[in-house]
Structures are given as C-alpha cells and as structure tokens.
C-alpha cells in the first residue's frame, strides 16, 4: 500500500481535477467520489489533502462514514 508524506497528501486536495484524499488514523482514504466531498471540500470546514484525525470528534458523524470510502494508502502518524 502506498505511503504518503505530508506534501504528497497535500497535493491530493480535490482541486482542478486532482484526486481528493484525506488521512485519518494512519490511513489515507479516497473521497474523490463522495458526494459530500465535491471539489475537495467537506462543508465549509474541511479540505482534502490533509490529516483529519483530530477533527472527527467535533463532527456530527463517526468513523462509519469513512468506512464507505476506499483506503488507498498509509499516512504514518507522528
């Protein structure tokens, strides 16, 4: 499975036709085809290409939503 670093992940921000990937707890999820991540943005709050591990606690949903998206890589946690 592909290992992403911060720069590589940041490039996958869903803008201008780029894929939209997000990191969560060491995994990288492809949210490109998710209706709620169009253009790499999730509501006004989150952007693709970033590690959202610490954001889920504040979200109105849990990990079950991420389970609907394919894991396509690893993002080693610091």
């Amino acid at each position, binding site marked *: 499975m592909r290992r992403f670093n911060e720069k590589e992940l940041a490039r996958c921000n869903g803008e201008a036709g780029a894929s939209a990937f997000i990191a969560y707890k060491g995994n990288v999820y492809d949210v490109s085809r998710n*209706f*709620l991540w*169009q253009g790499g943005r999730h*509501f*006004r*709050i989150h952007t693709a290409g970033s590690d959202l591990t610490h954001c889920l606690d504040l*979200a109105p*949903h849990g990990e079950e939503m991420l389970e609907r998206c394919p894991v396509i890589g690893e993002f080693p946690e610091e």
Partner: protein
Amino acid sequence: MAKVAREMVEKTGINLDQLVELLVKNAAAELTTFYYYTILRANLIGLEGEGIKEIAETARIEDRNHFEALVPRIYELGGKLPEDMKVFHDLSACPPARLPKNPKDVKAMLKVLVEAERCAVRGYTYICNLTAGKDHRTYDLSTAILNEEIEHESWFSEFLGEGPSGHFMRRGETSPFVGKFIR
C-alpha cells in the same frame, strides 16, 4: 437582510458565513429530498410498499416544509440561494436519495429513506450545537426541524426491524414542530 439580527449573531463569535452556508446546504438537502422522495413514493407499491407509502409522503411534505422554513432565515442572515438549480442540487448537505437499482426492492428503498433522514439528523444536530445559546432564532428553527427529522428516521427504522419508533404516524396536519415557521 436583518442587519441588527445579523450583528447580534456575529457578536457571539459564530462564523456567520459558515452558518449561512450550512443553512443553504441543508435547504438544498430538503428540496432535493422532496424531489427524490416523490420518485420513491411513486415506486412504493404492492403489498410491502403500500404500507410505507404514507409515511414516505408525510416525510416528503415535511421536508418541503423544512425548505420553506429555512429560506427566510438564510435571507435574514444576509445569505441567498444559488440562481442555478443544478448548483443548488450539487451543494446539498446530503447525498441524493436515489431510487435503488431494483425499484421493487422495498428494503433497499427503506435503507435509502433512513439514510437520508440520518444525514438530516446529523446536520441539524450540528447546527443546533453551533447555535445553542448564541443564535436563538436559528437554534429554534433547527431544533424544530431536528424534531421532525428524528421522527422520520424512527418511522423508517421501525420498518427495517431496528425496533419500535415509539410513536404513531401523524394524525392531522403535518409539521407539528416546524409549522409555526411557515404559517
């Protein structure tokens, strides 16, 4: 725009642009759900489907009411709706509640319906949390909508065998909670 009302909300520290966008996104979810539920309702037929048709219809009408109730608040806060209907559809806070590939699969339809309601419950809970004790009018409206969305979820959930909803379907008028905002 209600200038002072907007100022009061801003002074509480709420990010007003974010709040307005959330309201627009949820208004889009309500109107698109009204549309998709129209198709689902039409396809709820036969021995299994007919039993669900009535609650799908109530949920459909109440979701339209939610849209009607949200729009004035969006404009009061200085927001507006997109001019293009397709843009409005695509910025919805919830994915389209499309008819399943097999329109005779009533359980699949129920899953679409319950997922749509659960998305709404999450969304309005978030707005309630964001506005509680700060933006009283948006909070009041969101709480009213949330009450109805929770009931919709429990109706469909009951049919999926997840346990009793705990209450009967509507008797009389629709939108017992949101009605005061659309009279």
